[in-house]
């Protein structure tokens, strides 16, 4: 009887797992033409893939990589974040030496000396219509591309007490900054006002008040879609719907780690996490993790169901490495920037092996 129950349960788990995305992974490294295996960021532009590496920017097009370096005008060799202006297909490039802009072969660079950029250490960038929002080590910034006006947001004009902004996400109504050590900052487009969200536990490393606010002050990434905010921290993830917070930790969710480098939500519910221990996915109920196993390095896909039961889904491929920095989507496919290469997850359709 017990065996039967277990069998049914496993079968059901496998069925649930079928609903979760499965991928055939193709990995790119310097052997394929990437300028460096340490890939910090990835950005999909239709059929073109941009990769920001520790040693330049790379464009994958028609099966070949083209590399852009400081000799081409790139602000710095280390490219930390990428954002595409989907209207003009201009690429905004956050680097450790300023902000660059790529448009049809030409790279222009903005830095703290030649422009209103507050600091050359640029961690994040995103596009909101004609505005470019930037996260730097000395505050946030906004460039109005119509008027070339730069605005700086820091402790003098917003509620942030740390100015080390790490990530930024913008929609029509709101802009969110992940401020490393200062929680999440919200800008209301309509009212031109800033609001700050903090960990109700203060700077404690323990969670005293779960689901009563942001999980931790050391935020690394934000993703705001369909009026749902996701925040990634080095101590777990948070979801905020404008009224309620919900937090996710390794111990009580399918996150493979609390150390999160990026969060990127598809629609507010289906959400992906780049962690130091693999790529995680949450569909609102179940979790999945994709990685080479931490011990054997064998391809691994783990599924955690609503009941917390974890199962292994047999897979033959895995992302290049378990330490992941960045994510972007290409229709049903996913691209992942890892510390040892760029990975393309080619979606396996239901029923397909």
């Amino acid at each position: 009887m017990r065996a039967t129950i277990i069998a049914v349960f496993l079968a059901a788990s496998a069925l649930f797992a079928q609903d979760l995305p499965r991928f055939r992974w193709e990995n790119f490294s310097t052997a394929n033409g990437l300028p460096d295996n340490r890939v910090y960021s990835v950005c999909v532009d239709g059929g073109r893939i941009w990769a920001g590496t520790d040693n330049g920017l790379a464009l994958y097009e028609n099966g070949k990589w083209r590399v852009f370096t400081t000799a081409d005008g790139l602000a710095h060799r280390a490219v930390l974040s990428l954002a595409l202006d989907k209207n003009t297909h201009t690429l905004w490039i956050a680097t450790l030496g300023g902000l660059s802009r790529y448009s049809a072969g030409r790279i222009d660079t903005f830095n703290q000396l030649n422009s209103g950029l507050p600091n050359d250490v640029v961690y994040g960038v995103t596009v909101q219509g004609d505005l470019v929002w930037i996260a730097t080590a000395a505050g946030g910034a906004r460039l109005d591309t119509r008027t070339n006006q730069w605005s700086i947001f820091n402790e003098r004009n917003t509620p942030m007490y740390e100015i080390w902004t790490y990530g930024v996400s913008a929609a029509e109504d709101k802009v969110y900054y992940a401020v490393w050590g200062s929680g999440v900052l919200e800008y209301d487009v309509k009212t031109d006002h800033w609001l700050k969200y903090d960990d109700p536990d203060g700077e404690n490393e323990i969670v005293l008040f779960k689901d009563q606010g942001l999980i931790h002050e050391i935020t690394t990434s934000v993703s705001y879609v369909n009026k749902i905010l996701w925040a990634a921290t080095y101590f777990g993830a948070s979801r905020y719907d404008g009224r309620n917070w919900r937090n996710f930790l390794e111990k009580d969710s399918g996150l493979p780690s609390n150390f999160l480098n990026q969060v990127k939500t598809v629609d507010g519910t289906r959400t992906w996490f780049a962690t130091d221990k693999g790529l995680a996915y949450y569909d609102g109920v179940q979790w999945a993790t994709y990685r080479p196993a931490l011990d054997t390095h064998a391809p691994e896909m783990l599924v955690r169901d609503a009941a917390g039961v974890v199962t292994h889904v047999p897979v033959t491929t895995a992302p290049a490495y378990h330490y992941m920095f960045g994510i972007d989507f290409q229709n049903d496919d996913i691209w992942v920037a890892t510390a040892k290469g760029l990975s393309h997850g080619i979606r396996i359709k239901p029923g397909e092996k």
Partner: protein
Amino acid sequence: MGMGKQGRIAKGFTTNRATAPGRSLTAAAPLRVQSRHRQGAVAGTASIFACFVFAAAAAAQSGYPSPDDLVLSADGTRLYAVLSGTGEVVAIDTAKRAVAGRVPVGKVPRGIAITPDGARLYVTNSWADTITEIDAAKMQPLRTLPAGFEPTGIAFDGRGALYVANRLSDNVTVVDMASGAITRHLISAHGASYAAASADGARIYVTHIYPILGQFRTPPRSEIEEIDARAQLVTNRIALPDAAGVFHVTISHDGRLGLAALLRPRNLVPLAHVEHGWAFGDSLAVFGDDIGGAVQLPLDAIENYFSLPFGVAISTDKKRAYVSASGTNEVAVLDLARLVAAARAPSAARMANDLSAASRYVIARIPVGRNPRNIALSADGATLWVANRLDDSISIIDTARMAVSGTITLGAPATLTAQRRGERLFYSSAVAFGSSFGCASCHIDSTFDGLNWDLEPDGFGIDIVDNRALEDIADTSPFKWNGQNPDLETECGPRTERYFFRSQGFRGDDLEDLVSYIKAIPLRPNRYRAPDGELTPAQERGKTIFLRTNRKDGTPIPEGDQCFVCHSGKYYTNQLLADVGTGKPTDRSPLIDTPELTNVVNSAPYLHDGSAHTLEEIWTIFNPKDQHGVTNDLVKDELNDLIEYLKTL
């Protein structure tokens, strides 16, 4: 920019600390040596000054038609000309060779496009930042559409979108004709000005009158943007090394060959070899599939320069091309097969500076009216129409005979003012050795060229100077970055004769006319200042910084280091020399004329030698000792505020 110390050579000068922008220091300031010179000149040209007050206000619409751009209807029955001087578009009956209608448009119109069915015209109003849509049959305005800052060139893709090159926005706006709304801002380059569509409308090409800002004292470079009109995206930037001012561009009917008129300035070497052609190369960019890339071929010939090439046209059968020379008042006829052969030759790259090369493909040069701008070729290639801007006429060229067969006048005032005569001189290259260049070669469209020059025969790399804008400068003497010219008569007379043209200079009545024109060059509308003058919060904060007399720690800023002391008065200059610490070892003197700041936002690069690419760099790089105003106590957001304010001046 010269925000900084003053009085170091102005003995006895006492600054008025209460003087704020808008209040002139002129009355209070004792005259220095240079100013005394200026005073004498003013007395001698009192009538010119009296005229100037009126002229400055009216200059945007001069009263002279000044045809600039042309477009032909597809059936060839109508030619439309944009009259930038009177703010109109005229329709010309090509059979009768007569004006058939007129319609007023916006301020200082510059470019025109027509729908393939000939029903609608679209005209850029460069001072109004708008586009006028016109019913071509009725010659009536229909709608006013938005554009960027100083829209100039315009092209229609045949699908429902207009592409507008915005000179002061450095971008191309895409305007949806159905909704009348801007749908995209495509990244262009400095001084985006001219646009042309391929015959099928699939591609749009855009050029720029200013170079892309590069490293200090490196060769200029420009580009032609190629826009995929289906995707409405810039897909290619055709590199034009060593090129700066690039004007009209055209594409052959089959889309395989493109031509653009351009200048190759020799600004890195002393301007002492004019007789060797080392001032400008008047050239043509030849690009496209027929060439397999882009090359630049000269239009100049030895001692027979083709100055300021401007308008271009290719015949439908691809046998000929035509280029206007707005400085030497002629149209060149090019044999396209020979031109393409030259462009494909292994030696093509070396040909760009070869003054004997043009004889390979230029088969005739036809004299036309003054300052020919754009040209339009009939579909059968038989007739070429030329807009003679400073003759207020259109030349009709019989291309078979390669001669002018008629001229249409556009209703210019009967009398020619001194200003207009001066404008003709300004745009003429006749005065320089071999007619190789003129004032307008550097001061493109009476502005500047975005370049720094090694002008005088003082040795290589000595006294490099940034080309300054000419808007509203009548009362901003002295002139020249070292302030050595007390008045424009000196600047434009003996100085140009000796250091620029090396042939003859402007003298007597000509000089007076020229100066009267320059003094009347108006200030373009400022795009950053609200019409009611109200400042944004950032601009207001910046103004407070501009006017401050104390550092942030409360200690007083010495008078000579207060922004508004040197940059005072109506034009934001006290008209004195100052050492603001920006002098280079190659400068003979560290004393720099304090420049006016009006419309300073438009005139990058900055500083006397153009070494600062942006306003920010003036203080982030070139003011380490607070000699150019006290700015090192400012944080970055405060500097941004200061710049936001400067953009409104």
